[in-house]
């Protein structure tokens, strides 16, 4: 695929934790990823939406999809088990929240001791976020009941008092906040601003056979990230693009809320691959039993495309 203008399919996983619910209204995406903006540049990639992480993972393992936004620990595990996939860039940083009922008395994470908190799945990065807060506030295993729920079901579960709190990727926190019955207890921006959730992963054969395609993809992802951080209007444009039916199919106001309140709720400016951060994430994943053995950095990361990135100018078409 050396010809200019040829595209690859780029898939985006939704924070849905395995629910085969594609097509139901309101069941869509986490946050805007720099990738999804880059995917708007038509000659780079064609955007394909998957309604759950497992479906996306299976398509990637089977080689039906060559490039995808995936959960970082998932890529680690796949690579360790012999699936030829590598992380080539990040999609965003931060972007996870812990939500509680508006009138609830909880002020700090320590107040959640003995309570029920929903997480998307024990393999989700949000689980790591919760465990990090547990460690920070001296909570032990068993001090919290973790309930696995699909993120789209979390706001309703909080409203029905089925859980006392929930941890998830946006926009499912903002949804309950916007509807007026929930408030943010923690955002990753406050306690873990370098939080990595979704990464751009590509299959090894794409790296081997079409390195220039991967390079252009990475260049455009970085450019989209910079573009998102240069002006508030760009974030509004991004929200409009991402809310489209062909992308996340979410309410524009909701995505705009996530993009703007506050503007560093999700960040895109620093999409570098930093080994120490991945090593920490790997250790935390090991500790959370998401992976079952240590996985060396170079098994699942290919830094070369970030190292050789060229600045490109993008101007995503407004809808």
């Amino acid at each position, binding site marked *: 695929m050396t010809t200019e203008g040829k595209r690859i399919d780029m898939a985006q996983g939704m924070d849905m934790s395995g629910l085969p619910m594609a097509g139901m209204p309101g069941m869509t995406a986490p946050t805007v990823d720099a990738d999804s903006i880059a995917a708007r540049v038509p000659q780079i990639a064609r955007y394909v939406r998957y309604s759950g992480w497992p479906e996306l993972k299976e398509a990637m393992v089977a080689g039906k999809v060559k490039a995808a936004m995936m959960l970082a620990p998932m890529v680690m595990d796949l690579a*360790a088990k012999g699936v030829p996939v590598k992380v080539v860039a990040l999609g965003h940083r931060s972007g996870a929240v812990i939500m509680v009922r508006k009138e609830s008395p909880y002020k700090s994470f320590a107040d959640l001791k003995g309570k029920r908190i929903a997480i998307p799945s*024990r393999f989700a990065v949000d689980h790591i976020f919760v465990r990090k807060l547990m460690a920070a506030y001296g909570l032990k295993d068993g001090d919290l*009941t973790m309930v696995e*729920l*699909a993120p789209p079901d979390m706001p309703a579960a909080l409203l029905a008092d089925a859980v006392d709190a929930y941890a998830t990727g946006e926009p499912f926190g903002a949804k309950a906040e916007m509807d007026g019955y929930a408030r943010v207890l923690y955002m990753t921006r406050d306690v873990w601003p370098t939080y990595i959730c979704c990464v751009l992963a590509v299959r090894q054969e794409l790296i081997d056979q079409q390195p220039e395609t991967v390079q252009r993809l990475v260049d455009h992802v970085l450019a989209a990230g910079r573009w998102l951080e240069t002006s508030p209007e760009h974030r509004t444009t991004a929200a409009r693009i991402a809310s489209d039916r062909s992308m996340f199919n979410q309410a524009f106001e909701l995505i705009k809320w996530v993009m703007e309140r506050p503007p560093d709720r999700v960040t895109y400016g620093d999409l570098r691959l930093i080994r120490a951060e991945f090593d920490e994430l790997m250790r935390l994943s090991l500790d959370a039993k998401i992976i079952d053995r240590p996985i060396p950095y170079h098994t699942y990361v290919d830094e070369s495309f970030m190292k050789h990135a060229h600045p490109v100018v993008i101007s995503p078409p407004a809808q």
Partner: protein
Amino acid sequence: MTKILPIGVLLGVTAVWWLAASGSTIFPTPPEVLRGIAGLATDGTLLRHVAASLYRVTFGYGVAMLLALPLGILMGWYRTAFTAFNPLVQMLRPISPIAWIPLAILWFGVSDLSPMFLVFLASFFPMVLATTSGVQLVEREYLWAAQNFGITGFKLFTHVIIPGALPTIITGMRVGLGVAWLVVVAAEMVAINSGLGFLIIDSRNAGMRYDLVVAGMVMIGAIGLLLDLVMRRLEDLKEVRWRYARGR
């Protein structure tokens, strides 16, 4: 022969599966799945998952049966009841339990009750339908004969209508139980850390544990088979042998 035949078919299917799965990244082979089941059995989680699913299915199915049989008998016998309830039953029947999940969470929270409710919904309607048609299909000759003997009212129900409808009702109960297990994966999307459906969902969320996905499938299949064997014993009872043309 009756023992060799089914075992032969099962072994044949397993052999085809083994061949098809060799060399696949996702699809595990039978020995991998057996190792997965053995792993779950040794750390005690297998029993926990089986017990949790059995509990939820039994409860959901039990309540469904308690409500579906009387409603079906009413609808089968009284034209008015049929006219009144049939459209509602037909409307609710095709809705997948997955679509009910948000409401289940709203009404029952995240507890055992939500999956039980979803199992209930799934198994209720096939049993209502079977019971209704079982009662509607009770042969006229039986009723005439009963009338000649002066049997009316409650006695007519217990001595003629119910026995006459039982073969169809039991088929409905078998279908209902099958459906109850069919939806256990969907139902246990709202379950806390246990159940065979949960095991399947959880293992898909894990990186590469498709051996456990198939292990969950195999366990559900095995339990389904065992339960159906029990249900078929019901058909051998003397009270329900009114309509079987062929001996078994």
